[in-house]
């Protein structure tokens, strides 16, 4: 049935036909009889990557297929969400090798976007931990891995669903002794200090920083660095230690409807940031916290995306090479000059690039939210020019508006990627609004 669909940013809203499957035959039959198909997981990409004429939801294809509690090998159908994986594996002492900032994404979505976490500099992105996977391509169901049909494998990791529909994934989990994180938060006065702090804390497995983008002058780039390690049983307090692999029950908050757009303006963003960086916040704070608030601070507020109002928002995430950090200053300055406030500005440091078409490259990445309003897109085009000038690129899974040339100039392996896509997706059976926009749909 045709309906209005949108992803996490609530922009764009498009009319698509969405259908689902719970058996492989149903999917095969659908793919045989339809064109213009794109896989859709939980719609947590922000823009138009999983929207198309026929969006095929994987959410009902969500069974666990294998869990070896000795080795940590885990296999599931691609529609299983990360929170389901955690629910099964954490009590047995295993954790996701890589997780993004929300656990409400599917395993298929994690592969197709090749998601990164706070540990990219240390452990790479999600695909770094895949053992094998099955993909329903335009040429049928194909099993692939680094050694077997490796061209399909590399083009599927980060390939935004353009090689076909990933049906199952086997990957390796990470051993943990507790469900807690030993975390340290350090306040930085400005951009120079935060970058220095990142360097000093590079030995931590997990790190990221919140930046207040609206500050000028001496406080330009003031931020909080958050680093962490999985806690050992000895680091837990008495209450936590009683059941080290089980988290205490939590409360759920929810934003019940779209807030009017005036709720988020420079004033409220400033107020939020001021609270966050409040005066009585100590320079360094340490503690042992459950893994949930550490990895998924926003998941506790369901539908926080509605806070941006009806017109939705876009997330702008770019990466700059490690030796071009002056670009960060230039871009942040452009933002604070224009006063385009962002609640969430997240800064991370990436390690080496993982594969063909993945977003991460060694360098700095910044993610910012901008509510959609008049003048935003021309402004973002200006930012794109800066990103290109400093040798960076944008994250496809968060994109809803980049121009073709920006993509083709900034992803050096794009042509190679397209050659492989053409092999497995002849005629462009699998295509999204995004792939049409960026000239990534094979003809």
């Amino acid at each position, binding site marked *: *049935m045709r*309906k209005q669909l949108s992803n996490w940013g609530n922009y764009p809203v498009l009319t698509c036909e*969405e*259908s*689902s*499957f*719970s*058996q492989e035959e149903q999917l095969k039959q659908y793919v045989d009889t339809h064109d213009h198909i794109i896989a859709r997981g939980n719609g947590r990409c922000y823009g138009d990557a999983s929207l198309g004429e026929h969006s095929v939801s994987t959410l*009902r294809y969500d*069974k*666990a*297929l*294998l*869990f070896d509690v000795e080795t940590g090998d885990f296999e599931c*159908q691609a529609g299983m969400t990360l929170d389901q994986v955690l629910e*099964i594996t954490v009590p047995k002492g295993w954790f996701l090798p890589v997780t993004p900032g929300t656990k409400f994404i599917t395993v298929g979505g994690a592969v197709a976007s090749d998601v990164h976490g706070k540990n990219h500099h240390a452990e790479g992105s999600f695909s770094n931990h895949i053992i094998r996977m099955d993909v329903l391509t335009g040429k049928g169901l194909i099993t692939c891995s680094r050694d077997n049909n490796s061209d399909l494998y590399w083009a599927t990791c980060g390939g935004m669903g353009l090689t076909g529909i990933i049906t199952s994934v086997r990957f390796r989990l990470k051993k943990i002794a507790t469900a807690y994180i030993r975390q340290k938060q350090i306040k930085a006065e400005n951009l120079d200090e935060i970058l220095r702090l990142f360097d000093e804390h590079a030995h931590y497995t997990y790190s990221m920083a919140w930046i207040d983008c609206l500050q000028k002058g001496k406080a330009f780039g003031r931020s909080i660095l958050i680093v962490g390690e999985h806690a050992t049983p000895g680091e837990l307090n008495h209450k936590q230690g009683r059941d080290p692999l089980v988290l205490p029950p939590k409360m759920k908050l929810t934003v019940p409807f779209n807030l009017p757009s005036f709720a988020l303006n420079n004033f409220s963003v400033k107020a939020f940031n001021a609270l966050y960086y409040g005066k009585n916040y100590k320079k360094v704070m340490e503690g042992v916290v459950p893994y949930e608030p550490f990895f998924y601070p926003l998941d506790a507020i369901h539908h926080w995306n509605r806070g941006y109002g009806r017109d939705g928002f876009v997330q702008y995430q770019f990466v700059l090479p490690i030796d071009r950090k002056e670009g960060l200053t230039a871009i942040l300055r452009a933002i604070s000059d224009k006063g385009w406030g962002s609640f969430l500005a997240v800064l991370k440091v990436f390690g080496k690039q993982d594969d063909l078409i993945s977003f991460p490259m060694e360098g700095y990445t910044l993610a910012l939210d901008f509510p959609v309003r008049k003048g935003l897109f021309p402004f973002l085009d200006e930012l794109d020019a800066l990103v290109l000038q400093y040798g960076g690129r944008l994250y496809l899974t968060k994109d809803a508006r980049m121009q073709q040339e920006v993509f083709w100039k900034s992803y050096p392996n794009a042509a190679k990627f397209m050659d492989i896509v053409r092999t497995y997706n002849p005629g462009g059976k699998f295509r999204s609004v995004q792939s049409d926009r960026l000239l990534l749909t094979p003809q």
Partner: protein
Amino acid sequence: MTPTVLILGATSDMAVAIARRYAAGNYAIQLAARKPEQLYALQQDLHIRSGAAVTTHAFDALDFDSHHTFYHQLPVKPDVVICVFGYLGSQETGQQNWQEASRILHTNYTGAVSVLNVVAEDMAARRSGAIVGISSVAGERGRMSNYLYGSAKAGFTAYLSGLRNRLFHAGVHVMSVQPGFVYTRMTEDLTLPPLLTARPEDVAKDIFKAVIAKKNVIYTKWFWRYIMFIIRSIPEFIFKKMKL
């Protein structure tokens, strides 16, 4: 000893959610469906999630003659039997085409009666057990848009209430479930009002709790009881003029 639940029609979304809820409640699970090879993934899933013992069985609601053998060949006699299968079909096709109409009637009514008759005899003899039938609020008043399905479910609802009456005296509990709108593959082509629509997991949770509490009839979500009360109270001379 671990109790066992038998789920009839185990490939549907509702059945998957029910099976997961019972697995989490430490039940051994028997999954029955027309194509048991389609149950492999669910079997793995349940086992991985909870360590539950899970077996799969071939069962065809429309093959009435096979029901006796099917039930008596189960490796263990179940403590709880949940009849989940159903067929929505197409009202419009069914109006013109008896094949579709009879499939709707026989799946939702005759097939359910046929297999539950067998289960009832066994439980009555054992003087223990619980039978859960998933009917539908569509069975409470015929509407032009789905009265074939609705009438079969109405028959099923009446069957369950009679069975409850009879088996009460044998110490066997019978529960009817009246779901309103539920997000499943069966309903994905309908526009459902979000506030009135339940997720399969919600229905499963309700059922698990209500069986323990020995409830007779449950509505899920709960306010459907009141919605249906109002719908049943509309006088026929008005109701027939509405296009529902």
